[in-house]
């Protein structure tokens, strides 16, 4: 903290005025002094200047020395306790150490895990593991090639076809979402590495900014995770809905079988 500018100006002007007055009085020749009427009162002027000097020492210099001491103490405290350079450098070196780990983890997650052996599954698996949003459009074709197209109109009643179509849609959407989530995760990993590089040269004051940015990325990452979770719940819900639909169809078929059986038996009796 510094003295207010006005106080400094005031103090400086007063000191300069006192000094100027003393210099003028001392330099002026005897006659001039007489003209000023100073001769008879040199002792009084001298006493006055002594008083000013005393005041400068006691009222100005003493508090200034005290302020200087406080400033020094505050400076030492901040350098040694609050922001010690050694601790700051140590924290930065942590970011350097983490970088190696980050790169390793990214590389491990990029190891190929594909396992299909036949051509059609290989094609679908390649799209699924591509981590490339551009491959999403290809998934529907690959999916149909493997799991078959929707049942023909002549092969199944409409309710079954609807069920099949809905289920295929849910499965394909989940597969597409998985590719997108993989791609987003790759971007998050890249961002984490870049922010970490910034941290290696950051100052305590700028670290807060980087932390805020990382927090924003975390919110984003959580949002993507949430959307993947929603997709997962949709897949499981469709699975559950299918179970329920099968039971309903089965009940309906049993009713039809009962009535047909009854009719056949009645015809036999007649």
């Amino acid at each position, binding site marked *: 903290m510094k003295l207010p500018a006005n106080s400094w100006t005031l103090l400086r002007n007063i000191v300069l005025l006192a000094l100027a007055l003393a210099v003028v009085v001392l330099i002026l020749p005897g006659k001039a002094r007489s003209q000023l009427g100073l001769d008879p009162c040199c002792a009084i002027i001298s006493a006055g200047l002594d008083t000013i000097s005393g005041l400068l020492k006691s009222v100005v210099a003493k*508090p200034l020395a005290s302020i200087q001491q*406080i400033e020094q103490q505050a400076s030492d405290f901040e350098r040694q306790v*609050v*922001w010690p350079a050694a*601790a700051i450098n140590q924290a930065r070196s942590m970011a350097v150490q983490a970088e190696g780990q980050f790169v390793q983890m990214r590389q491990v997650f990029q190891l190929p895990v594909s396992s299909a*052996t036949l051509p059609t599954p290989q094609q679908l698996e390649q799209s699924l593991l591509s981590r490339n949003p551009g491959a999403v459009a290809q998934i529907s074709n690959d999916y149909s090639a493997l799991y078959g197209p929707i049942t023909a109109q002549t092969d*199944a009643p409409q309710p079954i076809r609807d069920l099949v179509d809905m289920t295929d849609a849910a*499965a394909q959407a989940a597969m597409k979402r998985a590719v997108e989530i993989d791609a987003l995760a790759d971007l998050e990993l890249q961002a984490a590495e870049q922010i970490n590089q910034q941290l290696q040269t950051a100052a*305590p004051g700028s670290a807060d900014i980087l932390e805020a940015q990382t927090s924003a990325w975390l919110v984003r*990452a959580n949002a993507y995770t949430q959307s993947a979770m929603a997709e997962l719940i949709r897949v499981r819900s469709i699975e559950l809905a299918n179970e329920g639909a099968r039971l309903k169809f089965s009940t309906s078929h049993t009713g039809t079988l009962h009535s047909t059986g009854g009719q056949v038996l009645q015809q036999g009796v007649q």
Partner: protein
Amino acid sequence: MTKLLTALKSLRLQLSGKRFIAVLAIVLVLAPVSAQAIGLGDIVSLIKTITGTLQDAVGTVLSEIQGIQTTINNYRQQIIWPLNELNRARGFVSATRARYSGLMSQIQSIKNNSASLVNPKQLESLLRGGQAGGIPQFQQFYTRVYAAVPEANAARPIHRDMMDIDDALAMDALKTTVVSDQTTAQLLTLADSLEQQSASAAPGSAPLLAAQARVTDLLAQAQMAKMLAAELRQEAAKLAHQNALLKQSATATRNLQNQMQQILKHP
């Protein structure tokens, strides 16, 4: 004389120090004798004004500044960053670390392997090893337990394809878990280093460590998303498998109906 003092005061505000001295000297030298003949009372009054200003305007302000500086300094040292509290926080970090990290490592290192036969044991060991280097062996060990896809003449093509994709996605997910276990170990090491650093951190270096922890958290979230993507693929494949069976069943039922009708038409 009062007017002269007022003029001096206003000049003092307007002129800088050196200019003020120069103006004062010139005025005193050039002024006519009659004008320079200031009385003793005037000089005493001037000195009194200066001393009064020093005592009241300057002295009071400086004392106030000194007081404010002391208050701020004390506030920083006693309220914001009291040394004993900083040391206590550091001690707390060390104590917490000493109390929990060992226990947590022990729990984390417990082996959950449960298979008892040779082939499942090998596969399980690979699954739970947390070493991505073992991934190339995966296919071999998996096939020993879950069998290979039947030969072309032993099953219908669609069934072979479905078996293959089921196996593939199961293996992909299992491999991803191995990778995840390895990176989990690295994340735990990083977390441990961060906590260790916190135990000797200063208030000024703590934001750097906090930012580092957030970045690592982002990395962990990204890896979590990858695991979730693997789970999504698995669940989707499961659903697709069930649906494919339903399609085949519908076609088979229609074929059966057609054949029955033909039989009934031509007894």
